[in-house]
Each structure stands twice: as structure tokens, then as C-alpha cells.
């Protein structure tokens, strides 16, 4: 009787410790059945045979960020060209036009012209776009996606009580 009670306690403990992911309906069972070509790598998870770890990045976010940055830079350079300001510092992204404006040898008492105002407004817009693009590119690389990619093709298996057929293709 005591032995039976002990066995019951052991079974209860084991079932309480069982990982639900290992159950017949857990994700590990799905993985065995489907063997997907790519899955997310979860920290601490053993890498299954035939899979290799890779890091993916959000390519779309990088592309959008690059477009924003390029667009902002073109607006900045275009404004510089329009205002006929050819100092090399104007071509420095974002802050260049502001440095150029503040370091010009104008009379400090002279009021700013409409062109100056135009330059500052467009420069600020360009700088904002460049910063947004930079943040998007940086966030794409910070938010990396660790994945496991299957390098070995599926192994079709025909199981019979006596014989089995295995086919393996490696690339």
C-alpha cells in the first residue's frame, strides 16, 4: 500500500514537472511533424540537427530608413544649392547647414533674410528626415531576429513493421 502511494506521488510529481511544450499537442510535436524550413531561435533551446543559427534583420525597415535618410540629405543639399551656399560644411548631414549659417561672417546686427529663414526651415525638415531614417536603420539592427534555418532536406520515412525506407538529400 505504501509503495503504491509512493508511486502515485512520484507520478504526480513527474506530471507536474512535465513541460507542456513536450506534450502531444506542444510546439515540439508540431516541429517534429512539420520540420519547417525556418523557425525562431528561442534562448536556451538546443539547435536541432540539420539546422543552423542565423540572425535576420528587418530589411524593409532598413530600406525605409535609408530612403528617409537619403530623402532628407537630398533636401538639405538641394536647399544648399538653391541658396548658392557652397561651403563644404553644408554637405555634412543634418547639422552641416546650421553650422554654416552660424559661422558665417555676417554683421551680427543685420537681420536674417527670407533666404536664411527658408534655409533654416528646410534644413530642419531635412535633418528631421535624416534622424528618422537613422533611427529606423538603427532599430532594425538592434531588433535582430535570431532564427534557425534548415540546411538539410526533409527525411521522408516509410515505416513498416519490418522494413523502412530512408531518403536523404543534402545541399
Amino acid at each position, binding site marked *: 500500500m505504501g509503495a503504491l502511494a509512493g508511486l502515485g506521488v512520484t507520478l504526480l510529481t513527474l506530471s507536474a514537472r512535465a513541460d507542456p*511544450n513536450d506534450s502531444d499537442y*506542444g510546439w515540439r510535436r*508540431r516541429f517534429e511533424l512539420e520540420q519547417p524550413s525556418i*523557425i525562431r531561435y*528561442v534562448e536556451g533551446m538546443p539547435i536541432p540537427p540539420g539546422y543552423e543559427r542565423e540572425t535576420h534583420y528587418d530589411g524593409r525597415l532598413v530600406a525605409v530608413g535609408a530612403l528617409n535618410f537619403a530623402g532628407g540629405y537630398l533636401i538639405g543639399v538641394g536647399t544648399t544649392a538653391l541658396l548658392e551656399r557652397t561651403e563644404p560644411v553644408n554637405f555634412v548631414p543634418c547639422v552641416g547647414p546650421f553650422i554654416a549659417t552660424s559661422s558665417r561672417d555676417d554683421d551680427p546686427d543685420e537681420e536674417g533674410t527670407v533666404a536664411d529663414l527658408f534655409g533654416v526651415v528646410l534644413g530642419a525638415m531635412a535633418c528631421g528626415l535624416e534622424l528618422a531614417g537613422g533611427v529606423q536603420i538603427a532599430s*532594425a539592427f538592434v531588433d535582430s531576429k535570431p532564427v534557425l534555418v534548415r540546411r538539410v532536406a526533409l527525411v521522408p520515412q516509410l515505416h513498416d513493421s519490418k522494413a523502412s525506407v530512408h531518403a536523404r538529400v543534402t545541399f
Partner: protein
Amino acid sequence: MRASRSELVLIALLLALVSGCAGADPMREVAAPLPNLPRPGHAMVVFVRPSSYAAGRSFPVYAFGRGFLGVSRASSWFATELPAGPVTFCLRSRSPAVLRAALAPGKTYYVEVEANWGFWSTSGDLLAIKPSGDRWRERERWLAESRGLTLADSSAVDGDDVAEALADCKEELASYDDDELAERTLQRKDGR
């Protein structure tokens, strides 16, 4: 140092604002790269939002007769297990979206949650991922490159909100033409 009455009012307003914004998060991240398999008599429906666009915008997902299922976030997926049979899903956004499904037991179905650009706010859409379509090939990569979420606490969901969302979705469903409906319908054979 004593705070003036106006300072106290300001502090109270800020605290109210902060506590109001910090509502209970119904979703939590799961340490699983794939959704579970459905139990007997049930089907699994996976809502995957692969794009990182509009990262700050979340879309609550409901099912007629079942209520709140979860919240779809950018670059994430969540799975919900439902009894086999017909079901209609509803996504709440500026413009609601509806998807109908006929679920077979033991099968897993995939739905893409798409965030679309809008002038005032982003709107969401539900699109069927079928084995015959291009989205099916992308499905594994989308899951791999997204975070898995699960519904942890639905107690914060307001019943009035659910009723309102479902009423909006009912109107939306009636407005779909045949092509729109086809794109938002999962048949029994579309499960895996």
C-alpha cells in the same frame, strides 16, 4: 517645502494620466518558436502580423460568439484554439476587418494581420493565408521572424467595447464584395 494647490492638481492629473495609460497588458511573450497543435475536436488559428510598420499600433481581435481572442502587435503572432466549425473573426481598428473561417478539427489555419497606412491613423486588415496563395510560402519565415505572444489576461477587456467592435464588424462584413470576401475566407481545406 509645501506644494501649492495648483501643483497638487497638476501632480494628481499626471498620476491619473500615467495610471490610465498603464493598463494591464493582456498579452505576454511565449518562449516557443511555433504554435501548439490543436487538441482533439479543436482547430488552431494563428494570427501573424509580420510587418514592423506602425509598431505602436495594436489591433484587438475578436470572434463572434467567443469574444476577445488577443491583441495583434507588429512583428508578432498569437495562436488561439477554437472548437471546429464555422467562426467569424473581427479586428478592431479605424476601419474594422472581418474574416470568416470553416475550421476542421486537428488543423491549423493562418491569418495575416496587415497594418495599412492611413492619413489620420493606421488601419488593420485580416487576410486569409491559403496553401494556394503566395502568403503560404512566406508563413514559416513570418513566424520565425516574429515574437510569439499569448493571451495572458483578458479581464481588462471591456464587454461594451467587444459588443461595439462586433457591431462594427457586422456592418463591415455586409459591405464586402465577392473578391474581398474571397480574400477573407478560410475554407476547411486551407488548414494544415
